[in-house]
């Protein structure tokens, strides 16, 4: 049940979905730089721990320019703030806008990296198990579509090979190539539609239209999943309490407010920090366990 080798993805889809949903909601709806930095740190460490070297390089190439662009562009569009640094085309570039831009960039990267982690952990079978609970019919359509995609790609290859063998597939000019592609595509569409109707006939024959069917799911909700879910909910509850008490409030305009450092604020930060770092913690735990077990051989 754990094909991608990520420790965190061993949990039940429901626990994982709740985890990412709560994490993303908190990240999207706060402007507090401490919380956002913690969110970014968690997502960054988890992605770094599960990436291959090549993926890490590609991520750096994508995220660093994006971060800089978002951070630098904000002061050009936002002129609120009480502390002008200098003037550009008669518009003030304010300290507040610069800091706010950096904050938005942190938030954007945190959300995108968390979504990336979500995609890594939740493979399509987990998502289908989730959808199957809510809407079995949609789950059937989704899983069939996911199965048809590689089938169509393979059939595309087969048809073009056949056309080449028959001497129909010409690539002398752009137009002849386009015509050849069109012929292959036309054959593919005909085949796919006929195949779809055959599939549906087969499904009906096996009683798909009968009442009382359920979506098949391999995932069992174990005690570990329950503990994980409870932990997520508990940490989120503490964070939410902090939000409601205004401990996470932060504003950039007109002046940058100071970060709260009273005891309950620190508890809020700690709770959210643990929440955000959970996937990375599981990953580290797994590596340490592996090292320990190997050392005993």
């Amino acid at each position, binding site marked *: 049940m754990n094909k991608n080798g990520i420790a965190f993805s061993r949990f039940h889809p429901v626990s994982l979905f709740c985890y990412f949903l709560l994490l993303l909601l908190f990240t999207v709806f706060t402007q507090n730089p401490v919380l956002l930095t913690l969110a970014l740190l968690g997502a960054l460490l988890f992605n770094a721990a599960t990436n291959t070297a090549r993926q890490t390089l590609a991520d750096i190439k994508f995220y660093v320019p994006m971060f800089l662009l978002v951070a630098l562009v904000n002061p050009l569009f936002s002129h609120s703030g009480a502390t002008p640094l200098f003037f550009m085309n008669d518009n003030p570039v304010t300290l507040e806008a610069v800091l706010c831009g950096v904050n938005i960039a942190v938030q954007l990267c945190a*959300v995108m990296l968390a*979504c990336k982690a979500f*995609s890594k952990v939740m493979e399509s079978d987990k998502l289908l198990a989730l959808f199957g609970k809510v809407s079995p019919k949609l789950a059937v359509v989704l899983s069939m579509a996911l199965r048809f995609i590689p089938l169509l790609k393979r059939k595309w290859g087969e048809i073009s090979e056949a056309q080449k063998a028959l001497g129909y597939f010409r690539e002398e000019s752009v137009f002849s190539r386009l015509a050849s592609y069109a012929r292959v595509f036309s054959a593919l569409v005909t085949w796919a*539609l006929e195949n779809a109707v055959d599939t549906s006939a087969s499904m009906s024959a096996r009683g798909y239209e009968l009442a009382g069917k359920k979506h098949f799911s391999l995932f069992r909700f174990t005690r570990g999943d329950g503990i994980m879910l409870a932990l997520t909910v508990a940490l989120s509850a503490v964070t939410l309490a902090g939000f409601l008490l205004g401990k996470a409030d932060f504003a950039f305009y007109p002046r940058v407010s100071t970060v709260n450092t009273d005891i309950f604020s620190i508890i809020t930060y700690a709770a959210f920090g643990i929440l955000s770092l959970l996937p990375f913690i599981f990953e580290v735990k797994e590596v340490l366990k592996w090292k320990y077990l190997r050392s005993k051989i």
Partner: protein
Amino acid sequence: MKKTQILKYLILLVCVPAAVLLGALVFDDRKYIFVSACVAVLSCVPFFMSFEGKKTSTKRLVLLAVMVAFSVAGRYIFAFLPHFKPVTAIVVITGIYLGSEIGFLCGALSALISGFIFGLGPWTPFQMFAWGLIGLLSALLSAILKKNKIALCTFGALSGVLYSLLLDVVSTLWYDGAFNLSRYLALFVTALPVTAVYAVSNVIFLFLLAKPMGEKLERIKIKYGL
């Protein structure tokens, strides 16, 4: 059937206004993005629910899956040309020939499956909504779009531009928390080449695919009595 009808109206008449109110009251500086995300998700839900509650023939179900697969597989086949993708064209064709419900679902599910494969992100609900809407609109305009090729190509170009405009609104709300016109215009201008590629690719794919695919779909409908 009755229950899903009631739920559908409940979502449209209660949940959407509630989301707007909650957003305005609770989330001071992030309210627009919260509200728009909620509305995008909630407006897809009635379609999913009426599809779930209704008795759809298995043939239509599988045809929907095939059309979704075509639009996503097209992204692979044309992977070498960035942004030049047949997704919108396939969604439009599905809307025209298979009706509004299948059209909407084809758009929304194509976005969702693209998310499964190429990475889910904050943009996924808006993509689902935008492509679903394109499928729905093309079904509503199907009488004109079926006959008139110029109208079809114009519709394709417009839907490419509208798709881009909508997603730019989302980015603006995301950066600023509110709608900042100068930022929106800047985003629109920087995205102009991509928007142009969207529009042109939609026109080309619709011009090439609409008739042959439409004929095949009509043939299947007659042959198997859909």
